[in-house]
């Protein structure tokens, strides 16, 4: 390397170094990362504490240290050996899967109809569906309960599931997503001889898989963690869902937090699986790949 070249490259380094230093030390960067870090800690702490408690003995649970002095797996053995846990788990699974399948189908069917068809009263129907979003769940519980009593749905899977079988939020979400499906796809299928139901199922639905995945995750999580309504509509322990069942670990004199936390830790497993299965569909946006924009 010649003298001139060495001088030139060292000069480049001299210029580059202070720039790199400045870039990492920008105050806005520091503030941004600090806020993100704090947010991350806030989000993860309850989960860390839940997991930590599930490995503690009962006398240790009010000790806030994260790593237990004497970690134990006894809580997991107890919960998993208790037959009721499997029963609650199974009930939750039936409820969450059924409502998810139902809501995904009906929400997208109604959303598609509202989006792609012209008919009298369409706007009224849409506004009526949207307006139900403004009513808090607590206000709906009494009408739901009266309905469940009237139809004999107390202490039944159907009783737990029926309020979530179709959702206004899902209808709205799917309607908005179907807006992004160009009519030309549907018209092409119409010319190819498909009926309207076939067009919805084989053309429109595969194009909104990201929205369907997001909706499936929301609905599944909502129903998997639902507490108030399943508690109200069931009084038979055989029909308790997981969140309701876990409350039986608290008795009049004491609350067995370590068992509740263990049950809750086990209950997160299906939700994690659902998220991992569906999140790749959310990321993969497929709608525009068949079109020239």
């Amino acid at each position, binding site marked *: 390397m010649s003298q001139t070249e060495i001088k030139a490259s060292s000069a480049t380094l001299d210029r580059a170094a202070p720039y790199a230093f400045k870039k990492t030390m920008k105050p806005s960067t520091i503030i941004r990362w600090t806020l993100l870090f704090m947010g991350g800690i806030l989000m993860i702490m309850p989960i860390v504490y839940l997991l930590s408690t599930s490995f503690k003995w009962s006398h240790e649970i009010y000790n806030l240290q994260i790593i237990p002095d004497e970690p134990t797996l006894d809580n997991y053995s107890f919960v998993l050996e208790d037959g009721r846990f499997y029963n609650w788990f199974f009930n939750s699974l039936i409820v969450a899967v059924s409502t998810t399948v139902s809501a995904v189908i009906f929400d997208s069917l109604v959303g598609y109809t509202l989006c792609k068809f012209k008919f009298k009263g369409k706007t009224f129907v849409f506004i009526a569906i949207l307006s139900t979003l403004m009513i808090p769940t607590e206000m709906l519980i009494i009408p739901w309960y009266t309905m469940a009593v009237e139809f004999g749905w107390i202490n039944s899977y159907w009783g737990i599931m029926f309020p979530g079988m179709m959702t206004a939020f899902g209808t709205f979400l799917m309607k908005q997503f179907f807006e992004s499906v160009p009519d030309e796809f549907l018209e092409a299928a119409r010319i*190819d001889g498909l009926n309207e139901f076939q067009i919805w199922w084989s053309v429109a639905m595969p194009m909104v898989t990201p929205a369907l995945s997001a909706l499936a995750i929301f609905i599944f999580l909502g129903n998997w963690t639902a507490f108030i309504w399943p508690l109200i509509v069931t009084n038979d322990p055989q029909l308790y869902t997981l969140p309701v069942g876990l409350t039986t670990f608290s008795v009049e004199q004491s609350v067995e937090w370590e068992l509740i936390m263990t049950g809750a830790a086990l209950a997160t497993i299906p939700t994690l699986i659902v998220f991992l299965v569906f999140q790749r569909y959310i990321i993969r946006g497929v709608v525009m790949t068949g079109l020239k924009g």
Partner: protein
Amino acid sequence: MANVILKKLTKAYGKTEVLHGIDLDVKDGEFVVFVGPSGCGKSTTLRLLAGLEEVTSGEIYIGDNMVNNLEPKERNIAMVFQNYAIYPHMSVRKNIGFGLRTSKLSKADREKRIDEVAEILSMTDLLERRPSQLSGGQRQRVAIGRAMVRDPSVFLFDEPLSNLDAQLRTQMRLEIKKLHQDIGTTIIFVTHDQVEAMTLADRIVIMKDGHIQQVGTPNEVYQTPKNMFVAQFIGAPSMNMLAGQLDGDGIKLNQSVKILARPKSDTKDVSIGIRPNALRIAEEGDEVLFEGTVSIIEPLGAEALIYVNLGYAEVIATVHGYVHPKPGEKVKLTAVKEEIHFFDSHSGDAIY
């Protein structure tokens, strides 16, 4: 294959009528191109033909059947859309075979038909690919394949080349023309590009504001345009149009300029139209038609367009690409009198 007849076809959206009584007879096996500016009703006519929109009044016949009340699938037509509309979640094979789902063919016959179409379109190697792995031209070919596979009576093309770049558009244009020569099916093609219309069509239908302006072969509409709109819409650059008045043995364009030619008409206000390629730089002994100053030059390679300011108007002339006047130079232009078109300035109708 089938002929297509439109009788007094109208279409209205609410109280707004967008098509005002279209009459047209497309012969069996003919390649007809609808051309016109945006909003002229060409795509609406195509959609009515396809059954994607309801007819307000009038009749549509495909072959011997009136199809006004038939569903799109019952009309035995196939349509290729501007945005291709090929399904992104299906392979090329599934896309092409999609239209056969409702047919009564066996699976083996369906596969055979898909392979045949893929071979015609030189797509055999691409059958297992997804649309996202194809180029624009290949996607358009898949869309054409999906239309071909059902062996329809009529092909409808709705601006299928608009989204392709210039080179690919020329290539696909040739492919579509060759395809028509090979399969001979009736094709109705919509475009706003008059070059596409001229190069592809057996007959061109020129539309404006929901009316047909002229129907004719490419040569007919170019050489004998029915009115000023057709004259200026067909041909690039547009025909030069100059307003004047009948005066004795010629047409007076302004106080001092008079063209010594006149139509067989007594209409006083007459416009003359001359195509840029009919004008040339006048040589010694030529009758000078226009005199003016060159304002702009657009070189196109083998030829160049010169914009000549006449003082009372501006005309465009196509001249030799390498030897031409410079901006600011004075030029004299001439033309063969047979190349001058006359139009009634008020109605816009051609005077022959």
